[in-house]
């Protein structure tokens, strides 16, 4: 009897002790380190494709987020009104499914108490997650959904740090206008998903302003397994520039079909695909001379106002992930999203979601990724795309000249003379 009373007393004491110690980190700043005060951790949620069809890109995005996370926590966290807050990122695997991504994002907010969101991978998932951000009035900074359709719906809480879809191949057109002999005709093939159609439309609108005529413009169903018929039709128009706005699989298939059918264009440029090492591995020497538009390359030279410069970023990436590979643009743009969120929180001097949203809307910073500044829709239209070319099995930045490390190898020799 007495024993059990003592035992229950002991349990009560332990419980009270546990509760009070548990409450401490969430309460007033503890201020153990003297001048710098520390506050509760900032919790950021991210539904991202760690498995499924875009697991590759999803994991690269996560690497980009983690790069910033380890850096900011080494600095002691984000400073909000003189108080340092360490950061946690809670991930959920959306299995590359846009619907699941939205569900998991809601879960991160309501059960995981995420105060801010870093975006998922891809335009479809970003589009469905933007709805959740809006509903909960939680700012989402995203780096992997470039379709303008996401930003034309009047959402107030979604911000994208990357250049919009319409600009993806505009850089190639700009570059082509500076080359001699100047190419004058463009054939463009495009997948029929939102993003790809926008990229293609960007070319169709932009090329005539640079004195180039679009002689062939066709869309194929997304996920087509054979596009040789379209390449044959494009060949019949004898274009100077052959472009594809689609995905890696189609870029590989189109490059193969162009060689099969002897389509000798002066410029072969594909929106997505050639920037990945897989493109070169899959095609070997046939990958040479191919151009692509890229959000970022490890060679670009910007003058960032905070965080790391390009060279240090590449070095830090190699150390952190124990690899010889350079970080690709998925990694860099994802880190850039974190930087935008960090700067906005600092500028807002508050963790209030609405205030951070307003600070994001006003943000204008230079980072290693380029300028980050949003238009009224939350889209970063201020950063240029760079043009890459594969030369002797390596990626080189060839345009714009002020950030380029090589000149374009032009014109592309005919397939028969390679």
């Amino acid at each position, binding site marked *: 009897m007495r024993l059990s009373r003592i035992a229950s007393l002991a349990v009560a004491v332990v419980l009270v002790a546990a509760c009070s110690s548990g409450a401490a980190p969430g309460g007033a700043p503890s201020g153990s380190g003297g001048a710098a005060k520390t506050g509760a951790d900032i919790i950021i949620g991210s539904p991202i494709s760690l498995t499924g069809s875009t697991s590759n890109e999803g994991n690269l995005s996560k690497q980009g987020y983690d790069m910033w996370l380890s850096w900011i926590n080494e600095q002691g966290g984000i400073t909000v009104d003189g108080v340092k807050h360490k950061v946690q990122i809670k991930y959920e695997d959306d299995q590359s499914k846009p619907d699941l991504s939205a569900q998991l994002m809601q879960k991160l907010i309501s059960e995981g108490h995420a105060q801010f969101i870093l975006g998922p991978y891809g335009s479809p998932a970003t589009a469905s997650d933007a709805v959740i951000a809006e509903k909960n009035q939680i700012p989402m900074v995203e780096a992997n959904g470039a379709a303008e359709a996401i930003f034309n719906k009047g959402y107030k809480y979604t911000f994208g740090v990357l250049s919009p879809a319409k600009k993806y191949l505009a850089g190639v057109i700009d570059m082509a206008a500076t080359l001699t002999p100047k190419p004058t005709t463009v054939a463009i093939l495009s997948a029929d998903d939102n993003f790809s159609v926008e990229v293609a439309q960007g070319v169709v609108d932009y090329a005539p302003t640079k004195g180039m005529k679009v002689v062939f413009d066709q869309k194929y*169903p997304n996920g087509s397994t054979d596009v040789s018929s379209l390449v044959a039709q494009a060949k019949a128009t004898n274009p100077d520039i052959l472009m594809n706005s689609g995905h890696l699989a189609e870029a590989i298939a189109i490059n193969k079909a162009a060689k099969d059918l002897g389509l000798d264009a002066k410029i072969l440029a594909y929106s997505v695909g050639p920037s990945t090492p897989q493109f070169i591995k899959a095609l070997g020497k046939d990958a040479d001379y191919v151009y692509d538009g890229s959000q970022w390359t490890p060679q670009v030279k910007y003058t960032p106002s905070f965080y790391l410069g390009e060279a240090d970023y590449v070095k830090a990436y190699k150390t952190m992930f124990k690899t010889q590979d350079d970080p690709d643009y998925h990694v860099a743009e994802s880190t850039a999203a974190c930087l935008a969120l960090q700067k906005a929180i600092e500028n807002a001097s508050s963790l209030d979601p609405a205030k951070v949203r307003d600070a994001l809307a006003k943000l204008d910073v230079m980072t290693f990724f380029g300028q980050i500044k949003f238009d009224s829709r939350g889209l970063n239209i201020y950063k240029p795309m760079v043009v890459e070319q594969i030369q002797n099995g390596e990626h080189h930045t060839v345009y714009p000249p002020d950030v380029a490390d090589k000149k374009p190898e032009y014109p592309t020799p005919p397939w028969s003379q390679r």
Partner: protein
Amino acid sequence: MSLLAQQLVLAVLLGGVYVAVAVGFSLVWGILNIINLSHGAFIVVGAYITWTLFGRFGIDPFLSLPLDALALFVIGYALQRGLINRVIRAPVFFTLLLTFGVNLAIVNLLLAVFTSDFRSVTPSYAGSGLTLGPVVVPYIRLAAFVIAFVVAGLLSLLLARTRVGAAIQAVASDRDAAQLVGIDLRHTYALTYGIGAACAGVAGGLLSTVQAISPTAGDPYTLQAFVIVVLGGLGSVTATVVGGLLFGFIEVFGQAAPGLGAGYANAIAFAVLVVVLVVRPQGLLGR
């Protein structure tokens, strides 16, 4: 005019690839009455075997085709014997569910082993072809076409001329009677499924040379195989060949339909399917 000739050549060659994609699917459906939703995954496994042998050991993709067939035969035989045979007499819904599950398992296994990177096999002679005036006949596609017909021919011979083929046909027409005359049902089922998987493996090896592959690339092939078999009709290799060639033509000329644009290629393909189903529900050559 030269464009039309080029399109015709492409259509015939592509049709050959589709014959390879569908012939194993047709066999399994016709004989075992299983709509094998893991067919696309088998194709991708074959493609990865070819890719691995080419990348690691420099083995020519066409030389690795027999190995694709053998490996997939073993996998198919074991899967049928150990797993699918348990639901062979269950309603079709169960086999759909089970093969769908097998598909998921294979795809995720491939993702774990090979990651979701896209791969492709590009031998040194890729891209060269026979030039007939303005028309190009790419060697790789030509070879794929020939091999597809060799596979279809061998399968046809196997079914018509050998004891094993006779046993398979007997099981298909009346499984109880077949068992009464001493045919080992389980072995024959597994054999049929294994042969179907082997055909898929060869198709995968061929596809790895013309297209980019990834672990999730298989699903469209399952769908294509389904459409081809419905178009051609169940029950014979010839029907699948006709269905495959027809589908090649639909795909190529669907992308070139005047005034419509390539975006309607799928719509045209399925419109043809609907018309065939209305006019000849058993397929063009179905019994």
